[in-house]
């Protein structure tokens, strides 16, 4: 199955996960397949391809870039077999994502030295659930995890994280609702070092990137972390809902500026959305995708692999599908 590739290093290959993705792939697979089942590469092919890519939320510009690259290569390499053009398109899409991944800092996990992960994003993007999944992911790799309930703003956000922590058997550092997030994060760092945990996962309140004060708060949170541990946070994950449209680009830009985003997590990829905005972000900002969330189970998190992603979401696998 193609999933074996998509979830190469997925610790729990559960059937439910496959079902989730299969649903999201279906329509566009057939459409892309049908598109290239023609006798020649003509204008109509490009038009329809444009439609499909835009409908996958890649955005006008990124779609244009991909199509231009495809056109160029078709011309230069004298390609006239649509099946071959399909492969070129696939390569171009993979290359776009790989280019971003090359910028990624290698993640070095040391036993007993907290690897600090700050998780940020707009409201409702799936931060807390992603943290639960990440905690589970690290547990499965044999690392000890500590959570920090840094969302002191939203009603019951702390409870939500605690429920997850209980289920996973992971400790949480939390303050009362309404407390200063900087303070609880400070405590979290202290605890992480004293206890010598491997991974410290920090939740933050959802915030729209247009809110100046809230983005300043993120900068402050970063400073609080850096004052204690100069090379932390080692990882700043921006969680983006797979259904996000072109606004995701602005989100990524603003969060990167305020919080120094290092990687993207594409959450909720189990619906019909293709998470195409990730291509636009990768192209414009060079931010790599590191994880994808594919379902509601705590194990529904996969490490990201460009080839598998492109295949799973756009091309399917002819022989196996």
């Amino acid at each position, binding site marked *: 199955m193609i999933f074996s590739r998509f979830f190469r290093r997925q610790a729990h290959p559960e059937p439910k996960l496959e079902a989730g993705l299969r649903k999201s792939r279906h329509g566009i697979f057939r459409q892309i397949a049908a598109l290239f089942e023609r006798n020649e590469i003509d204008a109509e092919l490009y038009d329809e391809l444009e439609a499909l890519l835009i409908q996958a939320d890649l955005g006008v510009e990124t779609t244009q870039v991909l199509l231009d690259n495809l056109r160029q290569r078709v011309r230069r390499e004298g390609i006239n077999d649509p099946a071959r053009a399909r492969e070129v398109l696939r390569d171009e899409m993979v290359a776009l994502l790989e280019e971003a991944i090359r910028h990624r800092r290698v993640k070095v996990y040391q036993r007993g030295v907290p690897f600090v992960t700050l998780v940020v994003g707009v409201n*409702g993007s799936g931060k807390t659930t992603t943290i639960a999944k990440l905690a589970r992911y690290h547990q499965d790799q044999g690392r000890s995890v500590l959570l920090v309930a840094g969302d002191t703003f939203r009603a019951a956000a702390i*409870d939500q994280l605690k429920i997850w922590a209980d289920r996973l058997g992971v400790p949480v550092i939390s303050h009362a609702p309404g407390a200063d997030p900087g303070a609880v994060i400070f405590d979290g760092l202290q605890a992480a070092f004293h206890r010598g945990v491997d991974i410290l996962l920090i939740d933050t309140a959802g915030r729209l990137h247009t809110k100046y004060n809230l983005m300043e708060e993120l900068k402050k949170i970063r400073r609080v972390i850096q004052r204690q541990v100069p090379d932390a946070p080692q990882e700043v994950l921006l969680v983006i809902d797979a259904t996000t449209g072109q606004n995701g680009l602005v989100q990524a830009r603003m969060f990167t500026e305020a919080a120094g985003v290092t990687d993207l997590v594409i959450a909720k990829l189990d619906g019909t959305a293709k998470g195409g905005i990730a291509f636009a972000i990768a192209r414009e900002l060079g931010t790599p995708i590191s994880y994808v969330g594919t379902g509601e189970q705590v194990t529904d998190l996969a490490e990201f692999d460009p080839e598998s992603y492109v295949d799973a979401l756009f091309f399917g696998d002819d022989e196996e599908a």
Partner: protein
Amino acid sequence: MFEALTDRLTEVFQRIGRKGRLTEQDVDEALREVRRALLEADVHYRVVKDFIAGVREQAVGEHVLRSLTPAQQVISIVHQELMRVLGSERAPLRWSTQPPTVMLLVGLQGSGKTTQVAKLGYHLRGEGRQPLLVAADTYRPAAVEQLRTLGRQHDLPVHDEGTQVTPVTIVRHAVARAREQRFDPVIVDTAGRLQIDERMMQELEEIKAAVQPTEILLVADAMTGQAAVSVAEEFHRRLQLTGLILTKMDGDARGGAALSIRSVVGVPIKFIGTGERIDALEPFFPDRLATRILGMGDVLSLIEKAQQQISREESERLQEKVLAGTFNLEDFLNQLQQIKRMGPLTQLLELLPGVGQALRQQQVRLSDDEYKHIEAIILSMTPEERRHPEIIDFSRRRRIARGSGTSLAEVNQLLNQFKQMQRMMAELGHMAGMGRRVGGLRGLLGGQPFAGLGSGLDTLMSHEMVPRGLSPRSPAQAAALRPKTKAGKKAKKPKKKRH
């Protein structure tokens, strides 16, 4: 890349319009820009296609081709067409003839259902109703607790039965309780679900069958991309939606999803969510969303906000002062406090077309804290000093700085800028006094109004502004006047005023 469509169209027509007479090809070129703008606003590909075809039909007509202002003409047609799709009037909530009216909020995970349930309850209580909120999301960890907390914070009754009872049972009990205790409406929070999750969609159908909701509102995130269509279609197919609540409209998403949803399922947009505060739920005005989708900001909302907060007499009094050149720091403080009541400054500026973008692009950051500093400085002055800032000498400045916990430099800056502002106002007053003509001032402000779509704005301007000589009644309204100028100017002015 998100420059306003007006600018882009103007550019296109400037490029091609020199030939004297426009051709259909020219219109097509312009429509390509419209298409792009709509796609960038996340309007669904299919919807855009139909939409453009509709606009084209009208746009190739004689009056556009011969028009002296083709850009405005095309914008105007696009705007009208947007309005047509978005629905031309407000759609109020429907009420059952047999209370309680049940309202079901449904949608994807993270769209904002729980928050909107609380906001809707708060909103309707403000209208004299007795809402009962129902925590029927038994799946997401702490969702019940979240609604309970919101209820407690705002004194709204919440019906919950924990997470061990099925949502259908909870909702049924809640409606029975409402009947008994005379709550109306019953507003139900449901778990977020994917439209393709068969089991979860069935559950909603069961709830619907059990309590016959009058309103089934789809809560959709304004940032949603192309998936909005398939989501809405499926929810509508299964549940027959009655309306839409568009959330997170306080961000900078264009909200094209709303247009897509409207045109594929046809249900009206009933509310928009504009923030995390309990009162951040507003009725929906198609006109404003149309403007926003086109990247033109929301001037009308701003003007309305300003008008809500600043009384007529007060504004007339200030008007006189500005015209007479006697506007002093006391008046300024007064104004600041009024603006503050309108909400965070940054949010207000976002409403101005182009300003939000310009600010972001130019990395200009406005902090509401700066407000506090200015306020503190003025509050540390004696009434005499506020009325006559010119008497503030060095030793007074030092005292004020110490008293307000700011620095001498900040005090100096404020005073200098206030002096500048006074001078500017005096000039404006002077010119308004001489001219008294709309055209005059418009020309002076250096730009054209959005001729075509300005209907609303123009009416407002002519009613509200012209008789009073067109001088700004408050900094906010000065800002509201400014959309008529070019983008670059807009960006700079509010900044100047800030310090």
